């Protein structure tokens, strides 16, 4: 579904990603793990077009992503749930969801999709007319995921969904990730919480200082001594 070959990217003179190659197949949940500053968020931003790649090839179901305008990427079926949620704090929950359905193909099914995400997250229905910024962190993450699902995506990019949340809420967020997997979405998730994310993913890549250094099934990586020492504190 998603295919990256030798992608380079950076900010000005600073190169953050070096020759990244990776695939995500339909129906999979793939995790990218790594330390803070390894380039995980940059990778997500490159895929969704927020940051242009400087070299390499990148396709979504055969369509050249590097030649696609940033606001057209979501029309290819890629929905990005950005780091720290990035809801519109002074818009209601429902207005946030409406913006998730901004693309023409989603507008046509707005009320249908709204019923669908409210069914998935009944809490959001209770809070529909509340400003998104007044909700708790866990509820905001729920809303950010729901907003992404409004466009009826094929691939959902989740950038550090557990960041900044209390441990109890982190458990709930990974439960949300399991649920959207169960709904049949393909998921690419970036996390620092390695032990948790390897429980929900099928496969994983390890990113270190901008380079992919290891990949394999989630079980393999979870069993690797190096990863257990460096990222899981065991």
């Amino acid at each position, binding site marked *: 579904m998603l295919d990256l070959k030798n992608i380079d990217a950076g900010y000005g003179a600073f190169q953050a990603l070096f020759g990244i190659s990776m695939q995500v197949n339909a129906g999979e949940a793939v995790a990218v793990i790594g330390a803070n500053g390894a380039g995980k968020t940059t990778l997500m931003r490159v895929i969704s*077009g927020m940051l242009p790649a400087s070299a390499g090839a990148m396709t979504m179901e055969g369509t050249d992503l590097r030649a696609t305008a940033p*606001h057209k990427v979501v029309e290819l079926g890629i929905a990005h749930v950005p780091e720290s949620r990035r809801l519109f704090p002074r818009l209601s929950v429902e*207005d946030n969801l409406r913006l998730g359905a901004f693309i023409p193909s989603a507008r046509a099914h707005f009320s249908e999709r709204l019923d669908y995400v409210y069914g998935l997250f009944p809490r959001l229905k209770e809070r529909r007319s509340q400003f998104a910024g007044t909700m708790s962190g866990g509820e905001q993450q729920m809303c950010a995921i729901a907003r992404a699902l409004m466009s009826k995506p094929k691939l959902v990019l989740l950038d550090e969904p557990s960041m900044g949340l209390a441990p109890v809420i982190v458990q709930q967020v990974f439960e949300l990730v399991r649920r959207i997997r169960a709904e049949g979405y393909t998921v690419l998730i970036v996390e620092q919480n390695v032990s948790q994310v390897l429980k929900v993913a099928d496969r994983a890549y390890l990113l270190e200082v901008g380079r992919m250094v290891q990949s394999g099934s989630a079980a393999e990586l979870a069993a690797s001594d190096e990863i257990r020492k460096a990222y899981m504190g065991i």
Partner: protein
Amino acid sequence: MMFGFFSSLDCSLDIFFVEALINGVLLAGLLALLALGLNLIFGVIDVVWICYAELVMIGMYAIFYFVQVLGLPLPLAFLLAIGLVACSGALLHYLVIRPVLDQPPINQLLVTGGVLFLLQAAATMAFGIEFRNLGIRLGSVNFGDMSFAWSRIITFAVALGAMIVLWQFLTRTYIGTAIRAISQDRQIMPLMGVDQKKVYLATSAIGGGLAGLAACLMVLQYDIYPQIGLQFGPLTFMICVLGGLGNMVGGFVAAFIIAQFITIGGSCVATEWGYAVAFLFFMLVIFVRPQGLFGAKS
């Protein structure tokens, strides 16, 4: 405090006071409409169109030209003028604002200031410095000893109606929702599939359209001359800042406050004093609340 000030000027609570009060409310409709356009542009694009009142002036001259020179019927002239000023707004964004979008605010202010003088000069060249009007006489309505011009009543009603329509647009449509969202987080708009450039252009056209509508209402009451922008531009800008720049509801309330200072001050002393008192009030407010009456603390 306000009433105390004016009563010391021998302005007791009589029928003239009530008349001035109601005229203030009627004037507030027009001022609120003007402030709304400027606030919309600032709220979305984060740029102040210092030449906003000059767009209104262009609209007024366009109506004058359509009616007096081309002999078009007034309603058609109004529609054409709204369309023309809406296009001017979009053009202003495309040609003048877009190249300086990432530059410091002072540069943006100065380029729109340049447009202000350009439009004034162009109007003077084309129409001269004479005061023009369409000779429209709508008469007035009397309540006892009080008299209110129909032109003011119509202006108030249409301005209020336009604001309600705009509010519906901003809250009920996708593009309207995007317009309200964009200042809260510009960077993630593409993730929603929103093309920021299109939102800016649409907002500029709507802001221009509002200036065009204001022009239609103003030709009913005011003479047209190249410097009319100086009469309304600073006032509009001050109302926006008083209400909290970019805050559309704040601008609406501020328009009603300022209009009262102008009409009550004007009826008690002289019109010029009304403006001065309004600006004095403004200065006192921003000493205490730099962000305006309804602005969020930055």
